[in-house]
Every structure is written in C-alpha cells, then in structure tokens.
C-alpha cells in the first residue's frame, strides 16, 4: 500500500529525515517509535504533504502512485489520513458541517454520490456510538475550546467518518489519560480492516498495549535503525532508546 524509499527531507536547510525505508501492506499496523527529535512527526507531516518540509531525495509510492505528485488534499481524497499531534482550531466552523464537507470532497473524488444532510447524520450517529463521542462535540466549532483529550478523540472520530485507507496517528496518545487512551485505541481497533493500514507514531509503548502493531520500527536521528515485531516495543520500554543507540553504534554500517 505504501512504500517509502530512501526518503530524505529537511526544514529550513536542516536535514531531519536521512534515508527512510519502509513498506506497509494492507491490513497491517506499523508503529514508529523513537525519542524526541528523531523525526517521527516530520515523517508524518511529509507523508501528509506539509510544504514547510522539503523532500530532497527518495520517493514514496502510495497505491502505486508517486505520493509527491499529489497535493495534500488529493492525498486525503485518495484515502490518506493524518490524525494531528496538535489538532487545529477553526473558530465558527461547525464540526459536523466541516466533516460533511470533507467527506463529500472525498466521495466526489472517488466517484461516489455526495451525501445529503440526512444520510450524513446517519453515519455520524453510528460512528459517534462506535467512538464513544459526546454529541456536544459535534455541535461545537472544530476543536475550538476542546480539551486535549477531546481534540484527540475528535481526530479519531474524523478518521471513523472519513474511513481512510491509510491512517497516520501522530502521537495520538500524548496528553491522554488512561481512560481516554483506551477509548481512542478501541476506536482505532474497531476501524482495522483487511484493506486498510495504520501507521502509529508514538514516543511511548503504552498505546501499543491497546493497538497491537504487526511491526515496530525504531527511528533515531532520521533513520529507521531497528525493526521488529510487537515485542520490540516492550524491549524499548524496558531498556530505553539508548539501548538501541548503543547497539547501532556498535554496528559498522546501517542498511
């Protein structure tokens, strides 16, 4: 579904990603873990198309297409979704209205009929139950005045309604208490299907207790230095990132 080949990216002339290679197949959940400043969020932003970052080398194939040929909104309409680490407030814009506009933009692009308010509300109601979202969040302006936890839940709610093929969760666990974490993770798990994939970007292992990944990758200083199964996350929790760093430093060359 998604294949990243030797991806280099920089911001303001500083290279952050230094050759990422990663392949994600449909039905898989991958976790990207790493210490602060390792480039996790940069990777998420570059995939979503944030233009503050410059891609200097490499390519990303998404469903066989060159991802960098697509504008951010085209990527979204092709089913790529980013749950933001810091969801943005849009004052005065009703959350439901916003989602309806988004869903219809996507449906239109995919050759589906646009939904009217009634059909759309049906979907919203259904997903609301699924995600244990409070109805009041729907009637408020997008993220305006939401608590940190509400914002993160709202991101996953957007994901539930938009049903992306490839979802990136950028530190969705940060700022969540344990109950909220469970709700968010449950939501993601309910959305897991054979034909979609999820990339979970996180600093801590705890989210991965709930969203169990098929693969775990450790990102340090802009490179994936180690990959493994779900157990790798536990090892990291136990030994810390320095353990991986040491291991890497003792190896002659990293592929």
């Amino acid at each position, binding site marked *: 579904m998604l294949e990243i080949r030797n991806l280099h990216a920089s911001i303001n002339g500083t290279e952050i990603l230094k050759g990422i290679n990663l392949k994600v197949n449909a039905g898989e959940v991958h976790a990207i873990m790493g210490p602060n400043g390792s480039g996790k969020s940069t990777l998420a932003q570059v995939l979503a*198309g944030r233009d503050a970052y410059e891609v200097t080398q490499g390519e990303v194939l998404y469903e066989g297409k060159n991802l960098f040929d697509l504008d951010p909104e085209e990527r979204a309409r092709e089913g790529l979704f980013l749950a*933001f680490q810091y969801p*943005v*407030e849009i004052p005065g*814009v009703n959350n439901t209205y*916003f989602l309806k506009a*988004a869903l219809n933009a996507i449906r239109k692009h995919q050759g589906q009929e646009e939904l009217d308010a009634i059909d759309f509300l049906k979907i919203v109601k259904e997903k609301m139950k699924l995600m244990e979202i409070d109805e009041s969040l729907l009637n408020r302006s997008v993220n305006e005045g939401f608590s940190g936890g509400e914002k993160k839940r709202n991101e996953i709610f957007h994901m539930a309604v938009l049903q992306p093929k490839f979802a990136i969760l950028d530190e969705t666990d940060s700022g969540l208490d344990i109950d909220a974490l469970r709700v968010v993770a449950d939501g993601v798990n309910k959305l897991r299907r054979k034909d979609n994939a999820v990339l979970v970007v996180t600093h801590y292992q705890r989210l991965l207790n709930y969203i169990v990944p098929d693969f775990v990758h450790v990102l340090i200083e802009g490179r994936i230095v180690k990959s493994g199964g779900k157990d790798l996350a536990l090892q990291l929790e136990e030994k810390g990132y320095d353990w991986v760093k040491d291991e890497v430093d003792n190896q002659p060359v990293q592929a």
Partner: protein
Amino acid sequence: MSTETDDIQQLADQEYKWGFVTDIEVDAAPKGLSEGIVRFISAKKNEPEWLLQWRLKAYRHWLTMTEPRWPNVRYNRIDYQDMVYYSAPKQKKQLKSLTEVDPELLRTYEKLGISLQEQERLSGVAVDAVFDSVSVATTFKEKLKELGIIFCSFSDAVREHPDLVREHLGSVVPAGDNFFAALNAAVFSDGSFCYIPKGVRCPMELSTYFRINAADTGQFERTLIVAEAGSYVSYLEGCTAPMRDNNQLHAAVVELIALGDNAQIKYSTVQNWYPGDKEGKGGIYNFVTKRGKCAGKNSKISWTQVETGSAVTWKYPSVLLQGENSVGEFYSVAVVNNYQQADTGTKMIHIGKNTRSTIVSKGISAGRGQNSYRGLVDVKRGATNSRNFSQCDSLLLGDKCGAHTFPYIEVKNTSSKVEHEASTSKIGEDQIFYCKQRGLSTEDAVNLIVNGFCKEVFRELPMEFAVEAQKLLGVSLEGSVG
C-alpha cells in the same frame, strides 16, 4: 512564501464575476452641478415646491462645506462638475405589469439572479427594483396595501403620501448633516419609502436591489423607513454593479425611524459594488450616511451589513437611542481585497435610560486591502444604566493588507457599562493545511475559515440573504482568501 499564501492570492485575484453593462437609452441631465440642475431634477420628477426648497437649501449649505478628509482612505479628488446627476431609463408610459418592462432590463436582473417574476411567484420577497435611479417595477404592493403598509419608490411616496414624507424626511439625517448627505439631499433621484402602521408586523422581507448602470452617473438614493408603535419590518438592500473604468460616486442616505413604543426595524445590506481592477483602477466610491432613530420606548433598530464591494467605502450605520430601554445593534462584515479600502463602523448614541447597544464588527483584509473599523459609543449623562458591548475582530489574509481600529468611547454617567473586545488574527497556514488534509481545496478551506469567522454576523441575516452573503464572500475572497 508557502504555496498556501500563493493559492490564497490566486483566489483573491479572481475577476469580478458580475461585470456587465446594459445598453438602455438614457435620459440624462448635462454634466455638472448647479442650482439649475437641482431645479431640473426636481422638475423632472414633478416635485412639490416644499421639496424643491428643501433641496435648494441643502445645495446652498453644501456649497459652504468641504469634503471630509479624516477617513483612513485615499482616493483621487472627485470633480463634482464632471458628473451627471440625473439619468433615468426612458419610459414611454406607466407600467402596469412586468410584461411591459424593457426586456433588456429584465435580462440584467436575471443575470443578477433577481428575476422579478420568480421573486414574485416563489420567494414572497417584494422587490422594489431601482435601476439607474428610477423604480421600474414594484411587486407585492397590493398584498402590503391590505395591511396598510406603504412600500414604494421615493418619488411615488412624494406624490402619494406627501405629508408622511414631509414629516420625516431629514428628521434623522438632516439635509446639512455632512458633506455627502447634503449633496444627496440636493440631488437625490429616487429611492425607497416604507411605512409600517401601528401594530403591524410586515409578513415578508422587503427588498430593494440597487444597481448602478449608466457611466459617470452618481447615484444618490434616498431611503426612508418609518415604523409606528408595535410594528416590525425587516428590510433587505443588496446590489451588484457592472464593470467600469471611471470611478463612480455613490452617496446614499438611509433614515430609519422606530417611531413608537416597541417598534422594530431590521435593516440588512449585502453590498457588492465593483471594487476596481487588480491595480485598483475604477470601482465605486461608496460614501453613505445611514442612521436610525429609536424614538419609542423599547424600540429596536438593527443594522446588519456585508460589504464586499466598492473601491472605497465610507459608512457608519448608526443608532440614536432616545426611547427608554431602546436597543441598537450593528453587525458588520467588511471585506477588502486588492486595493480596496474601507473605513466603516457605527455610532451608538445613548440618550434614553437603560438603552442597550451591541456592536459586532468583522473585518477581513486580503491583497493590499486596507480595512478600518471606526466606532463611537457615546453614552449621554441622562442615559443611566445603559450598556454597550463591542467586539471588533480583524482577519488578515496575506502579508500586504492592513487592519485598523479606531474605537471612541464617551461615557458621561457612572451607572452605565461599556465593554470593548478586539482581536486581530491571520488566517493560519495550519488551519488551511488541516482542512486540506481532510480533503478540502484551498479555496474551500479559505471560504470555510472566513465564513466561520463571520458566523456571528451571518446568523443575523435573513436566511436567503445569509446564503447569498456566504457565496459573495466566497467570490470576493476567491483568490484572495475569504
């Protein structure tokens, strides 16, 4: 800069969509302004002697005045002798129905989306269409007549209801009030008159579409609305204008009078006059005096305006709060793009006890546009326990535009309460990126964000007008953010 900013700029750079010119024989006065011209206009309209004298008095007063230079706008000096002060579509006879109206005119209306037939049949909106200063057709007159509501052109009102006009004309905006109001009083060509009798709630939105058409013709409309005790009326004013090279002056006067106790007037404007081209050439000068008087106890006047047009806008819809417990409201969205300039706001003059006013102003600046809010809250000594709340928000699109705020507050008693809130924000790349990540185009993202910003004002507009206003905002900001 980022592509978002570029995209926004592209959106803002869209051409004026509704620039077209209708070719109609014009019966016009020669260029220039003199006592003779004032007499010509008055004679042309078969006006009574008192009105001629009123005009002449205004004209003589105007001669002693100088054009105000204090607004925060710049434009070339207007040559008042180089303008035509009267033009009317030639009409051979009085029209009894729309079928007699010049089809060319009707086509123009259709382009504007205000087919009179449709309006008459479908929407329940009575439209008094003002085309180059003369009312062409009035609908729903009969229906309104049953309720005793008078809604007609100003000329008709002078003919058919001279006493009412004479009593109220100039009672809120005196003939010599200011330079442009005096000019209007001297040469006004036509406009609308509306009278709601005691206890009557006007069952439909009254609406007038103004349209500037003949080249080099200043527009001097005059609107007078009188609401008796316990009555209610909602009045809509909206307009678009054809593309022009020369600047056209529009100096209208609107007077609202909530005469009796509990009288209510709601006045909504969506204004979209030609703003000039991308270099700032051409476009309308909109120097308008709008004022309402809450004379009755518990009376209420509410102004809502959405200003997207004009090269230069200079207007302050105001309310004199005389009656006890009377209420004044001002809700405004002003958009400037390219080289547009707007200096707009309101004056709330609290005279009676327990009077209340609310001001919500949303200024949006794009391109090289300059937007100023200028407001006065004046609480007189006798206006005890009065309250005002003002909120002025500015949204900047791009980095070459400007937003300015000039709030004046004068309170002369100790029991009143005045609150003022202000904010200035830039449309965020973060916000646009967030919308795009959800599948929305830059254009839609900008529309969404701007409409969200203006929500508090839009919800004050009548439903159908709100939809139109949102579209207009989209058009004006397409390519300019907004």
